[in-house]
């Protein structure tokens, strides 16, 4: 249907049994040609009418003001805001509203999303001036009472915008991966024997292991904004997760502390708590950074 390459001849020679008798009887009703231009226009107008009717019929609507930018499309080269009126339904999230706008008004409206349940970390956005996950943010929670008249949705600040609400995550990933974010102790027991870990120790690292790599913390951090080399809260939290895991030996812990106390590591943090405030998984990021500072001091490592 999309390339014009004709079907291989062999299909007609296939002797195996076909499903359904209609095809064998030379059915042609289902092989209709593509719509012509006027039919396409009519279909698209009908879709638009349905969207308008859904808005008219809705008890309440919400106005999205969405950041738009596409370096390749002339009318979007200059960043701008578009408004979309979306029918409000109880329980509607910011992500739901964006999807509605995309599916009913403008299929080019671009944003990352996948799981819809705050675990894939794809849809961290700047909603009404704060870093939030679109899927976890109830539209109704953005107003003191009732629903907000308008919701402003922008890409994460302090990251390069690729298009509309999509930002380049490469720098974030690079920082995450620079702290050797993997369990390194090779001295594991044989066969089916597991390493022991106390409940207390598991509890100690539990919050740090909940990170979903959404990048909200990094975007909220003034230090990271002004210093591209700063590891940032998420990467330091990842380092904390391993440095505090008793299953890794002492030597490795020291190795890890050396990584995070480098020039652009933990000492850059000025404990403003902005990362902790925006973290959608409630990870006490600032506390973790402070704990690593204390460990580094205890180990008498130099600091900057």
């Amino acid at each position, binding site marked *: 249907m*999309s*390339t014009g390459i004709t079907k291989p001849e062999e299909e007609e020679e296939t002797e195996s*049994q076909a499903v359904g008798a209609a095809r064998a009887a030379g059915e042609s009703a289902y*092989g209709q040609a593509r719509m012509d231009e006027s039919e396409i226009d009519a279909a698209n107008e009908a879709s638009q009418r349905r969207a308008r009717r859904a808005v008219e019929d809705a008890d309440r609507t919400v106005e999205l003001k969405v950041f738009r930018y596409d370096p390749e499309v002339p009318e979007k080269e200059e960043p701008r805001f578009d408004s979309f009126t979306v029918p409000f339904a109880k329980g509607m999230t910011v992500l739901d509203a964006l999807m509605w706008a995309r599916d009913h008004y403008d*299929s080019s409206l671009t944003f990352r999303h996948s*799981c819809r349940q705050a675990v894939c*970390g794809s849809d961290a956005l700047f909603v009404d001036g704060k870093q939030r996950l679109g899927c976890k943010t109830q539209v109704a929670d953005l107003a003191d009472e009732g629903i907000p008249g308008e919701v402003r949705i922008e890409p994460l600040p302090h990251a390069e915008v*690729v298009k509309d609400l999509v930002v380049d995550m490469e720098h974030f990933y690079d920082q995450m991966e620079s702290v050797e974010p993997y369990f390194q102790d090779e001295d594991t027991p044989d066969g089916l024997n597991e390493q022991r870990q106390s409940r207390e120790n598991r509890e100690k690292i539990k919050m740090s292991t909940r990170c979903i790599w959404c990048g909200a913390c990094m975007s909220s951090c003034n230090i990271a904004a002004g210093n591209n080399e700063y590891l940032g809260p998420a990467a330091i939290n990842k380092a904390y997760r391993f440095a505090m895991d008793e299953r890794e030996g002492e030597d490795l812990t020291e190795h890890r502390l050396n990584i995070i106390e480098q020039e652009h590591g933990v000492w850059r943090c000025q404990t403003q708590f902005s990362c902790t405030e925006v973290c959608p998984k409630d990870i006490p990021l600032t506390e973790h950074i402070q704990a690593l500072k204390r460990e580094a001091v205890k180990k008498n490592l130099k600091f900057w």
Partner: protein
Amino acid sequence: MTNNATMHEHDVIVVGGGGAGLRAAIAAEEEGADVAIVTKLHPVRSHTGAAEGGINAALRDGDDPKDHAYDTMKGSDYLGDAPAIETLCETSPEETIQLEHWGMPFSREEDGRVSQRPFGGLSFPRTTYAGAETGHHLLHTMYEQVVKRGVTVYDEFYVMDLAVTDHPDPDERECHGCIAYNIKSGDLVGFKADGVILATGGDGQAFDHTTNAVANTGDGLAMAYRAGVPVEDPEFVQFHPTTLPSTGVLISEGVRGEGGILYNSEGERFLFERGYANNDGELASRDVVARAELTEVSEGRGVNDEYVDLDMRHLGEERIVDRLENILHLAEDFEGVDGLEEPMPVKPGQHYHMGGIETDENGETCVSGLYAAGECACVSVHGSNRLGGNALPELIVFGARAGYDAAGRDLGEARIDTGPGARSETETDLDTPVSPGALDGAEPDAVADGGALATNAEAVVEDELRRQRERVETLLERDGINHAEIRSDLQDAMTEFVNVFREKEGLQQALEAIRDCRERYQNVAVADPSRTFNTDLLHTIETRNLIDVAETITLGALARDEFRGAHWRKEHQERKDDEWLKHTMISWNGGDPEVFYTDVILEGEEKTYEPKIRSY
């Protein structure tokens, strides 16, 4: 990773970066292969991360892989293949401990060993878990290993189709790679490889109420299907009994495993009081609980005529916070309910596809060099119903096997035969109201059949690259309609007619609706003209895949006139072992789908599993 070349070459390509894909890549790397992961999401965004409950593994004294195998075979309603089930259960302990050795933060017992809990359909509490977020930890732990090993990851590269030779017989075809769309740059690139492993996960977006992610569009299944690989037992779709009514967000079976109770609107513990599962109650198999809930609702005992209540308050705050904390967040964020103060509303939602790409126990399909593992595959361990806690071990066990095999390790000859050549009989009188498959006289897909005409590996990939480029250009340049309404209508039809309860007329109506979607899809176009991050294009192609997936599910459901596991038929209220101890296979057959059958393998290594009445 960005790279401007239009052709890449690796020994092994893994399509998908979730649990199965990551484990496959690690295995191939261990085996010394040059392996790369090509995935439309960054790996940590994969939906494995949403798995909550745990990993079944016979680790402890008093437990035995043989018991795990028996439970799994019973859970499958005797439609699992013994060689696959025994491989799963024997290998799961070492694979689970391997995760521990890689640092996965499992929940722990007082003595520091990993915790296990009871799960539905299990004769021993062997579900190994990390809070109610086991999948998140499994996914991140394996991605950490991928980073450690320096495996190449092409993230945000959408694989559009496979590069497969064009031999008339799928059993004789060879896969030489795949074609991917670089989402960020808009470039199409070819990947040439000796082995391609599909690990694309679920296809829940074929339904409208699902626990699956928006990205779970059955891409791998649709690609393999059109390349000639049979889709095995597609009619078996698991509807999870406890999903939140407004969003489909999953509430883990762990809640019932820890003692959570289901009530109807009359306050009855209906699984016992209404006799659905007199022994196991809430911990009966998922299909049993899902049907019980919908029966309660349809007989007027649903809460608000829509759902039932799942109550865990009696477990106490300490235990809930310790073992099920994530559930509290989900119920609060997505349903506005405080699970410590009130029962949580739940209803069945599409959750998992037992059926999938037919493979043998080494992960290989009938097309040489093409593998599949994880939810997109059907090896078959789950048969007609998957037990909770059996999906994650499947990912790691069969992900690893596919990775090893594709990289050249000798795993021994598989006992499961694959491909059209393995058929035991062919369906000849299926009563379909319309013809499924490709549209007559339509412009064919780029992938109407096995792929390129060339036989030389490089030329096969180049041919396919050219076709996919034309496909993209056409979609971008022509005028047409948007795919979103077509997708939405498809989902509605599947949820109306191919849900928990199925009957012949409804299934036929579904086939007509699917046909209608296919016809309308001929007119789709992509309105976004940009080459940069064109998700409009991506979603449009996904919708085509969903149409193919939905059609295989419905054809299988119509063909199987019996009641087995998750597949309930109104007119056929019995499991018919004389007739139906066989796998349904749907083959694309050059656009003219055929249905055939292969025998179930109930002969295990030491014993033969005798079908028994499945009661809980």
